[in-house]
């Protein structure tokens, strides 16, 4: 078995043990998942993709897909990429590093910013990353999935790091992989519910209307997986930003369709707080807006293609497998 599969299998084992309704509920109340974090750290997952770990960026993104599948209530994308970038710059990866989006006002929106040991601020269209001077002024907040996203304002500007592949696009790719994983679970939950729920004396999975809804969901989920993989394949290439643009745009579109259809299949049960489905759909809705929504990335990709001209668009599409 190859290293990546071993990592992913271990992750699945740990996450399926820990990630349940109680943990997601607690996280939404602002409780940090200490036991889970300890497992993550003990297995060295927080250092995936760093040179010292002997794993690469593709391993890191494959791991994030698994995190999405289990709605892991930790800022794994931020921890992982922060550690990769910090170690590349010759700095020490501390435990819970995080990454936020810099805004024009100087505030940085940081997942779990309240617990972050080091914070990196990323801006669109820049390869530079600012290392925030801590402590910073913190205004706590949450995204629509109830995940902590805090607004940090530092008194002084910090040191700048440089990375090769656009850090903004790398964060978008992280969301793409989280979404690809979350979409898979949304499909699985829909299939499971349709087979368990009975109406009119038979399983609702036997109704053509339900079958067709889930077929649409399966098609979107399959497209999302393929689009996410293509984004990862483009790491280090001249088309990295554009491939991430295509992936984020395509997967974001899938989220809207899948969330809508899977909720419809679940009926009122899936609309209750008690059900687990919303822990996935609300995350998916949040993630599609993080680090550039569909319009943002469609515009980027479209502008590139327009620059090539009408008679080059096919070549562009057919160039990369």
């Amino acid at each position: 078995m190859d290293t990546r599969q071993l990592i992913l299998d271990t992750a699945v084992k740990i996450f399926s043990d820990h990630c349940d309704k109680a943990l997601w509920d607690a996280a939404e109340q602002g409780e940090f998942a200490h036991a889970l974090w300890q497992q993550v750290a003990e297995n060295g997952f927080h250092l995936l993709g760093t040179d010292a770990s002997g794993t690469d960026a593709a391993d890191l993104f494959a791991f994030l897909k698994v995190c999405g599948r289990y709605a892991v209530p930790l800022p794994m994308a931020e921890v992982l990429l922060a550690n990769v970038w910090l170690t590349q710059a010759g700095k020490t990866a501390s435990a819970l590093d995080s990454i936020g989006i810099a805004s024009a006002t100087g505030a940085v929106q940081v997942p779990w910013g309240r617990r972050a040991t080091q914070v990196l601020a990323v801006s669109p269209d820049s390869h530079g990353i600012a290392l925030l001077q801590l402590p910073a002024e913190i205004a706590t907040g949450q995204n629509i999935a109830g995940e902590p996203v805090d607004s940090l304002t530092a008194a002084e500007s910090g040191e700048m790091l440089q990375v090769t592949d656009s850090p903004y696009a790398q964060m978008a790719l992280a969301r793409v992989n989280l979404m690809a994983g979350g979409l898979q679970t949304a499909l699985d939950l829909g299939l499971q519910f349709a087979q368990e729920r009975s109406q009119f004396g038979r399983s609702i999975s036997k109704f053509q209307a339900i079958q067709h809804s889930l077929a649409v969901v399966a098609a979107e989920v399959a497209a999302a997986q393929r689009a996410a993989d293509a984004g990862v394949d483009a790491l280090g290439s001249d088309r990295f930003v554009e491939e991430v643009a295509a992936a984020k745009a395509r997967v974001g579109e899938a989220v809207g369709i899948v969330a809508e259809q899977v909720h419809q299949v679940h009926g009122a049960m899936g609309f209750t707080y008690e059900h687990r489905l919303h822990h996935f759909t609300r995350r998916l809705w949040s993630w599609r807006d993080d680090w550039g929504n569909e319009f943002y990335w469609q515009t980027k990709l479209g502008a590139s293609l327009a620059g090539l001209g009408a008679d080059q668009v096919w070549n562009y599409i057919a160039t990369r497998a």
Partner: protein
Amino acid sequence: MLQFDRVSLSPESEALREQVREFVAAHRDHMPRPNSDFVTGHDAEFSQKLGQQGWIGMTWPAVYGGSDQSNFERLVVTEELLAAGAPVSAHWIADRQSGPLLLRFGSEAQREKYLPGITRGESYFSIGMSEPDTGSDLASVRTTAVAEGDAYRINGTKIWTTDAHRNHYIICLVRTEAPSENRHAGLSQIIVDLRNDGVKVRPIRNMAGGEDFNEVVFEDVLVPKDRIVGEPGNGWQQVTSELAYERSGPERFLSAFRVFVELVRICGDNPSPHQAAAIGRIAAHFMTLRRMSLSVAGMLEQGKDVVVEAALVKELGNNFEKVLPEIARLVVPDLCANDPARHKLFRETFSETLMLSPSFTLRGGTREILRGVIARGLGLR
């Protein structure tokens, strides 16, 4: 879980792509109005030229005129021709599914008789599946072929038969035994000569004004017994395997491609944000669909059963083909202006594609049938 693995093309395949592009560039006179819909553009001369290049029946053994290449090489040729809007309708069905069907189930004599003509781009086939009372419910076909000495006597009607009025042969799904409890039993496939066996072919005008599909009537048509393909009674299994080829190719997502090309042309190199977003949205779909289609080609190459994956790519691809013109039209300025000269090429391509678009989710298996196939793959049926 449905899996669409990464597939990359070999340098040889990419070199072939360049050859196809050069060929297309040298034959622009065959494409006065490029259209990426595989059904439009029946051009025997162009098909014969493709045959001379060795680009028809590419995956078949050389002994039948093929060139023993992989599904990937075939994919490169077909996607390049479709994207360019080349006229490929004449040989398309024979290359895609009639030939592979004969290779897999046909007799040696049939292969020797029919395949070389197909690879030369001279011999064209139609699909005889649908009937006036048989569409999605294919097993309900009523056309009969009754054994009579050395012949079969065929009676019945086939319909929506693309290019029957210009093609040479039709492979019909017929009942060779009376219906029984097992509705998939007693069906066979039989080759009929559209020009010499006495069938009546009546073109049916479509809503776009074109005459591509037909009604084909069989009244006591006698054909030699050796026209049966495979084992008599094995028709259902054969037809099902044929459908995987029919459903998985790039023609299932590229039909509206030229509308995209003309949209990009209109938008120019300084598009508005909404135009750029429309272009980017369409491109993101194409990039993903093409990769999924490549994955299916890879699975076909490995001899895997791709019935569900092919249905899934067709479902996504056909829906997208219909959405593409809808996305495009909203960002073309003054499309509504009553000036036919403005955006002429876009208008023509757009309106032609829009009028053909209802067929995209019907031909080769309706959306409803495909979703049923996917649902079965998901374990829901």
